[in-house]
């Protein structure tokens, strides 16, 4: 595998470049058109995403026989794994932009900046999915984080939003600082920033007694703190409910899906490529600790979601729990586990974004995020309620909805390695989760609203809803999505 030089790499880097270019275009357009409430910038961003998608597909065709391409002297890697995540992230961003267009909450003046930042954060996430160097990892992480902080606090006159941004940045800065410290230790021990070589180097110094296991352990745990914060796993999850609740709903949706997906991309690449070799960590029961983290994450997420009355916050906890499910697949670093994560992320993208979209719609129409606001929705807006029910039951994992198949895949992977206890905990968590998801359904279907007027939505709204709802029903039933993992390998 050759490492391409800088200029040669540019062609393969075109998706990212396009994003940056369009971010600039958005800002310039915003400056030119004077009317700062114009939605044209959003459409430009969408076009940008479209162009980027085309570029991704083109670059994907360069990858033959699963042979990854290394760019910029090994800083970045273009492989099926990266392409998968880029497409996923792109879809999430596109959805976020569409949500933002419809969110009354975000009916603000600084549209240009907002969409530019969205494109920028997507760019950062692309990097997270493809970095193979400690430096790039750190830069990618910081790019995503910094822009996310701003987006979370984007509602200038909302104390909630500001508080969210404040907590986010404080937490994020400490976590990424900790991670950076860990990265520096790793760098020191391995003598290189190249993820591809780190594992071999560490193994060598460990074998020669140059460094102790403890040092490696501390370094990795520090790094885990940074990644754990991105995927909101216990005990690094505590920022997420507050930030999710405070941030504008589209951003919450974005964070809960895209940010988490990017975090998992980083996690998988870092541990699979960097530390997937058992000989490095043979003195540490790595599987056990990750399994514990996974079990704790889903349990804490689900239990804490039980008493919530704010749907946004409830979904925040639910997404913590889903992070825990996803971690199950990551525990073992097996191909099945990877495949399960890929599949689950696809499903999760649709069902979780869909659920958040309904939250956006209800916040617009009923002006509330509380469960009480969902009362009688079934009669006021049957289609929206139906879609929401589909999303929620899919999140629970009820067949024949896609969420079930996603979980099935994950549990399959876990049981395949003999971790029956983890699978059981995960499954029992699904049962618990039913309770709070069903509370929303109950409010929508079994209770009656004080205000019984029908809610009217535009055709576009229904179209967008069905964009999420239809895949949520069908993804699991189609063979295609299960085979994605066959095309993706991590080396």
């Amino acid at each position, binding site marked *: 595998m050759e490492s391409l030089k800088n200029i040669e790499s540019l062609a393969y880097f075109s998706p990212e470049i396009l994003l940056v270019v369009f971010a600039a275009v958005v800002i310039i357009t915003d400056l030119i058109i004077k009317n700062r409430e114009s939605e044209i910038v959003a459409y430009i961003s969408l076009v940008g995403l479209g162009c980027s998608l085309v570029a991704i597909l083109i670059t994907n065709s360069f990858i033959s026989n699963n042979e990854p391409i290394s760019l910029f002297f090994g800083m970045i890697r273009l492989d099926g794994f990266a392409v998968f995540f880029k497409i996923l992230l792109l879809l999430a961003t596109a959805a976020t932009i569409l949500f933002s267009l419809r969110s009354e909450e975000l009916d603000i003046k600084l549209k240009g900046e907002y969409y530019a930042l969205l494109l920028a954060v997507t760019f950062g996430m692309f990097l997270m999915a493809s970095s193979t160097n400690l430096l790039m990892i750190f830069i990618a992480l910081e790019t995503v984080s910094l822009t996310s902080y701003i987006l979370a606090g984007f509602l200038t006159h909302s104390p909630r939003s500001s508080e969210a941004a*404040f*907590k986010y940045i*404080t*937490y994020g800065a*400490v*976590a990424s600082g*900790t991670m950076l410290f860990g990265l520096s230790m790793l760098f020191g021990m391995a003598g290189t920033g190249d993820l591809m070589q780190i594992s071999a180097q560490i193994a060598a110094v460990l074998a020669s007694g140059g460094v102790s296991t*403890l040092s490696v*352990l*501390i370094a990795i*745990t*520090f790094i*885990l*703190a940074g990644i754990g*914060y991105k995927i909101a796993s*216990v*005990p*690094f999850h*505590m*920022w997420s*409910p*507050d930030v999710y609740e405070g941030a504008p709903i589209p951003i919450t949706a974005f964070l809960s899906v895209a940010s988490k997906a990017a975090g998992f991309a980083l996690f998988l690449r870092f541990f699979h490529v960097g530390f997937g070799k058992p000989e490095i960590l043979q003195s*540490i*029961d790595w599987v056990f*600790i990750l399994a514990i983290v996974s079990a704790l994450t889903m349990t*804490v997420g*689900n*239990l*804490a*979601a*039980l*008493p*919530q009355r704010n749907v946004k916050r409830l979904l925040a906890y639910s997404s913590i729990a889903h992070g825990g499910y996803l971690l199950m697949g990551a525990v073992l670093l097996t191909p099945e586990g990877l495949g399960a994560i890929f599949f689950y992320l696809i499903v999760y993208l649709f069902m979780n974004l869909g659920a958040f979209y309904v939250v956006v719609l209800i916040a617009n129409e009923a002006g509330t995020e509380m469960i009480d606001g969902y009362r009688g929705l079934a009669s006021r807006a049957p289609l929206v309620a139906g879609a929401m029910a589909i999303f929620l039951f899919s999140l629970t994992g009820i067949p024949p909805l896609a969420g079930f198949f996603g979980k099935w895949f994950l549990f399959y992977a876990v049981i395949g390695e003999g971790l029956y206890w983890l699978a059981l905990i995960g499954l029992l968590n699904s049962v*618990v989760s039913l*309770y709070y998801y069903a509370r929303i359904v109950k409010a929508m279907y079994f209770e009656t609203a004080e205000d019984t007027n029908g809610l009217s939505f535009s055709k576009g709204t229904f179209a967008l809803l069905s964009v999420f709802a239809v895949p949520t029903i069908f993804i699991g039933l189609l063979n295609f999505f299960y085979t994605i993992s066959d095309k993706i390998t991590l080396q």
Partner: protein
Amino acid sequence: MIVPLISIILLAPLAAFAIFALLGLAKRNFPRQDYLSTVAMLAALGCSLLLIQEVVSDPKPITVEWLSLGSVTFSMGFYLDSVTVIMLIVVTLVSSLVHIFSIGYMHGDPRYSRFFAFLSLFSFSMLFLVVSDNLLGIYIGWELVGLCSYLLIGFWFEKDSAANACKKAFLTTRVGDIGMFIGMMMLFAEFGTLSLYGDSGIFEEVTTLESGQIAWLSVAGILIFCGAVGKSAQVPLHTWLPDAMEGPTPVSALIHAATMVAAGVYLVARMFPILTPTSSLVIAYVGGITALVAATIAIVRFDIKRVLAYSTVSQLGYMMLAIGAGSYVAGLFHLTTHAFFKALLFLGSGSVIHAFHAMHAHHDDEHAESDEHDDHSLVHEHGSEIPPDQDMRNMGGLRKKMPLTFITMLIATLSISGVPFVFSGFWSKDAILGGVLGQAMASNSPHYYILFGMALIAAGITAFYMFRLIFMTFFGEPRNQEMHDMAHESPWVMTVPLIVLAALSFPAVNILWFNENYIEPPPQHHIHSPQRVYVSPDSKTADANSGISLFGISEAEAAEDESGHDAEHASDGHHGHGPAHTIAMVLSICVAGLGILLSWLFYHKRRFSAEAVATTFRPAYNLFWNKYYFDEFYDGVLVALTVWKSRLFAGFDLSVVDGIVNGVGTVTRDVLAAFIGFFDNRVVDGLVNRVAAVTWSAGGRIRRIQTGAIQTYLFVVIGGIVLIILIFRLF
């Protein structure tokens, strides 16, 4: 020829019912359901009579595979031997007469059609029971007659007493049926079939059993007998039958005197080949005790129908005793004669009741009021207020008002009392007594002497209370003039059946029983003693010259029933029949005469005061009057539970009386509901809810960690890192 005949016998009544049911779905009635049912029944009767000649040729005309389960097959089929045919005739005959009688008796009832439909259904079920060749079929018929009994006892369901009685009847008999079913399960588990006849039938298989293997067979036999105990109202499950008198009187005559209750005897007779000495003895004793207990209770009843009901119980006990003691033929003979004269007595009493009030509507109204306090508990109170039109204390002197009824009932009474030679009841009763005594003499077993004593005493008491009934009802002065004036002879549709039945109380009509070749007792399996021999038909005919051969048969039976007797002993028993028979006959005539005499002195001549005697023998009188406290005992057990409950929940001073009043209903609602409901709600459901609550509160706790202060969060981060590292270092 057999198949069409038997088909008509079964299908005609069924069709009559089906027409009613189908039209009922369309909310319509067949215009003359009474004629329809009656004609169907008469057709069945005709076919039954035709069957007499057909039987001998082929006892098993049809067998169809009812259920096939791969290795096991349950077949349904008919078995027609002479006993079956006689039963068929008895059932169809009595049923036809009751149908006819009901046309008059039930006239004007709002549910007139339904009554006949139910009668038809009953007749079908009973006939099905009779002809079935396997236990499953018998059980099906058995339960169906129970259903019909339920429906007919509760025919006037507006009366709470009727509603209670029908439920009690069904439940009590079902308790016995469970025993029967368990017995069936035992037989099935052993033999893999429930068919009785044929090469692989139970009766054939049972002969292959080795000695020493029959302990379970005794148990199975007794369990099957349990079914008969319930259905034939034997002690201790007899309490339902007197209550069943809440049903219309024709029903009492048909179901609760002539046919259904006799089905138990028939069942035991059918199962004769598998009865072991032990189970036979149990059956005999239960029968004997029942005969005695019921007879003594009957002495002190005033309700005309209840006297007859207890009399029925007593007579059924007699039959059981006979079969248990090995007098197979005598038992069945008595079954037949009893069916006729008891049906006659009931119909006669119905005629009297009918005379006293033409309108059932009155009847209903009175009851509605008197039963106000009923609380619909599971088992009702047995307060047994006697309806005025059934109270013998209101009767008297009806002889002249209702001559036909009087004469026919007198004939029946003479028959049941065992007045010698002229009446069939004498012969059948004598056959039993002679059989038991013969058995006793042959075996020298004290058991059979005791049983003989019981039977003899019961015979005397029977004569006494039956004549008491006659004297109180038809003789003397009217006690209730107002009611007496209302009384009138019944219309011809009601008297004709009485006359026919009266004719049937003479032995000449029961000619079949005197043909010793017509009925042969089935060989009983003598599993345990190899030296036992089967009694060949020859040994019976050897005694044919004794005039009435069935005594010989019964004694031959008796002889073979005792273990340790070899062939010679058996034939000894044969020769010993002469004195046994004679002694029994003499004794029987004596006790009957004594009973009648006493009755005459007490109730006609009033030489003695029944009240004075009652006062003198207060404890015995109380015992009889309270029906040996059986009902009280059953309630008592349940009340004890109530008391226990009261102690537990509300302190002991909650009155026991209250508990009695509330009866089982309270037990059920409070104890069971309190316990099971409590258990289900609190323990089973509670555990689940507990888990849910714990989960929920865990959620609340986790939530509290989320304080909102960012530095707490950061502390958790650092703490988490340290913890992970520590965990790694420690392990």
